[in-house]
């Protein structure tokens, strides 16, 4: 495509110095500034006193040092240079953003507590509460794994059925249209009633959220297969079973992956609701708990973990897709 923009963050030719990697040096400057701001200015302590201010400053300074070293040496080590070069601009901006965040929250209270918390408070939460957070991550992962696997499997089968069998579609289609878009919360009481344990009810909610997009997109995928592909197989003696398994499904896989991807997002979205069902830990549970106390620091900390987790899982999914669909160059991007 167009814009082969130079992402490498090369400095203006006039600034080019043999052996120097300018973005690294700039990043060192912004991170040092962040450290200075964090340590040098007094906290606007009002309600809470932060215990981690010093440590945050030290960490920022250490990273500034690292970037400085990289900036001075990276060009000399081409392999290393190639890996860090794309990070350059982001590192510079991140340092500046950290400094700004610090200034706006802890130092001048432009963004008021408790809605906005300074970095040191997040660090504090991770330090004090990491045990509970880790437990929650594990619990949520396990819940997601069960619900997602179930939902994806059922959704896939339903989608293939819809795309393939007019008979199945006649009965399933109206049901899906009516039931699919309902919000997860609406299912809570029924899920309660229908499932023997709250764990299975939670799993059901996650599965439902996952299953709907998977079913719709699998269906779409199967329905949009180039009819010539069927013609070819049919003239070669393919039976319906073969047409489904070896033509429709492989051809629909790119769509199925879009569905799996959307389903993953949806399953995260209902995590909070699903974890209202008597679970003992979990990120959604942690979030409602933190919100119940208006403990924004904890909430942001959990959100960050959640975002990283979701992003990581999607990355995994896309890795899988790239492997399975190597014949196809990245249809859905992540």
């Amino acid at each position, binding site marked *: 495509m167009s814009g082969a923009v130079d992402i490498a963050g090369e400095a203006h030719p006039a600034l080019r110095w043999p052996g120097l990697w300018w973005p690294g040096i700039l990043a060192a400057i912004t991170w040092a500034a962040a450290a200075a701001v964090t340590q040098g200015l007094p906290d606007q302590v009002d309600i809470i006193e932060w215990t981690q201010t010093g440590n945050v400053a030290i960490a920022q300074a250490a990273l500034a040092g690292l970037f400085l070293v990289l900036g001075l040496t990276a060009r000399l080590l081409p392999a290393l240079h190639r890996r860090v070069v794309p990070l350059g601009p982001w590192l510079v901006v991140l340092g500046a953003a950290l400094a700004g965040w610090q200034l706006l929250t802890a130092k001048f209270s432009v963004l008021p507590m408790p809605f906005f918390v300074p970095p040191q408070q997040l660090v504090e939460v991770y330090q004090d509460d990491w045990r509970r957070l880790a437990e929650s991550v594990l619990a949520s992962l396990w819940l997601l794994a069960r619900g997602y696997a179930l939902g994806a499997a059922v959704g896939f089968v339903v989608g293939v059925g819809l795309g393939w069998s007019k008979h199945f579609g006649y009965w399933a289609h109206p049901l899906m249209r009516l039931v699919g878009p309902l919000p997860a919360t609406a299912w809570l009481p029924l899920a309660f009633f229908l499932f023997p*344990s709250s764990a299975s009810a939670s799993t059901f909610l996650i599965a439902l959220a996952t299953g709907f997009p998977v079913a719709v997109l699998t269906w779409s995928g199967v329905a949009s297969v180039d009819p010539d592909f069927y013609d070819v197989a049919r003239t070669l003696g393919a039976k319906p079973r073969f047409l489904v398994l070896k033509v429709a499904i492989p051809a629909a896989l790119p769509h199925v992956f879009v569905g799996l991807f959307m389903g993953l997002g949806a399953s995260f979205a209902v995590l909070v609701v699903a974890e209202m*069902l*008597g679970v003992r830990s979990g990120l959604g549970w942690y979030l409602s*708990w933190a*919100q119940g106390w208006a403990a924004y*620091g904890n909430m942001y900390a959990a959100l960050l973990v959640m975002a990283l987790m979701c992003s990581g899982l999607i990355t995994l999914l896309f890795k899988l897709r790239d492997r399975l669909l190597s014949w196809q160059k990245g249809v859905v991007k992540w």
Partner: protein
Amino acid sequence: VAQHDHSAHAGHSAAPPANRAAPLPERVKLKLTWNATALCTSPIAVAEREGIFSRYNLDVELINFGASTEALLEAIATGHADAGVGMALRWLKPLEQGFDVRITAGTHGGCMRLLAAKNTGITEDLASLRGKTIAVTDMAAPDKNFFSILLARHGVNPERDVTWKVFPANVFELALSRGEVQAIALGDPLAWQFRKRLDLVEISTNLSEDYANRACCVLGVRGSLIRSNRPVAAALSQALVDAQNLVAGNHELAARTFAAYAPGNVSVAEMREIMESHTHGHSPVGRQLREELQAYITDLKRINVIRANTDPSRMADRITADVFA
């Protein structure tokens, strides 16, 4: 959440109050749901930690149910739990619909507050709320129900003279500061924190007027459990009443116990203060409980929450159980 381990027999030294239910002959497993954010239910945590449940030969598993206590009721009614503690004014309306759950004991009084910002012209007089907007967490919130009752008693029509707006509790502060609402109706601990931090006027609480001696939270037990094994229900109710009594004389214990369930930035002292503002000694059972609930039902009927053709006395009979009788 590692505070349970060493506590099984720690509570024996506390002088047991006059028992109305005996310990069970053999150990019974129970699932008890609660809301681990509601500081006022901290006696449950105390009962577990101080071994009060074990004293009655109960093996209680605590299940936390996020913020919405009607989910708790659903959990009991569908057999996912055997009992739970929730707010009477939240539960009465759902109970009217016919859940198979019976209330066996009230646990304590207090914990709802009606607060207003200082510069809004709202005073401690309820009538000053006329024409104002009040934030609530949802349209079925117990706080909304309670203060509607109170407003109605003071000649303010809760449906027409004030506006109720729904906000999540954690943005009440913003809604106030932005003038989207002038008052908030909320439960502790957030209500207490807001009042203190934002310097709000406390117009009323549910410990005012006739309600000073009324239970706020109640223990609901699965109907089938009461029918099949009444002694268990009795033992559980008794254990909780015991815990309430223990806490009533030792708020510090409750606050310390509950610290495990609170985020790091909430201090024990603060929690003790909150606890002290409730009436933890008041745990009605039997006739008294039935009467308190009937009064609530009558009140709710007056503000059109309970249906007009529901008979408060019959409903009170249906939703309570005197497990000690």
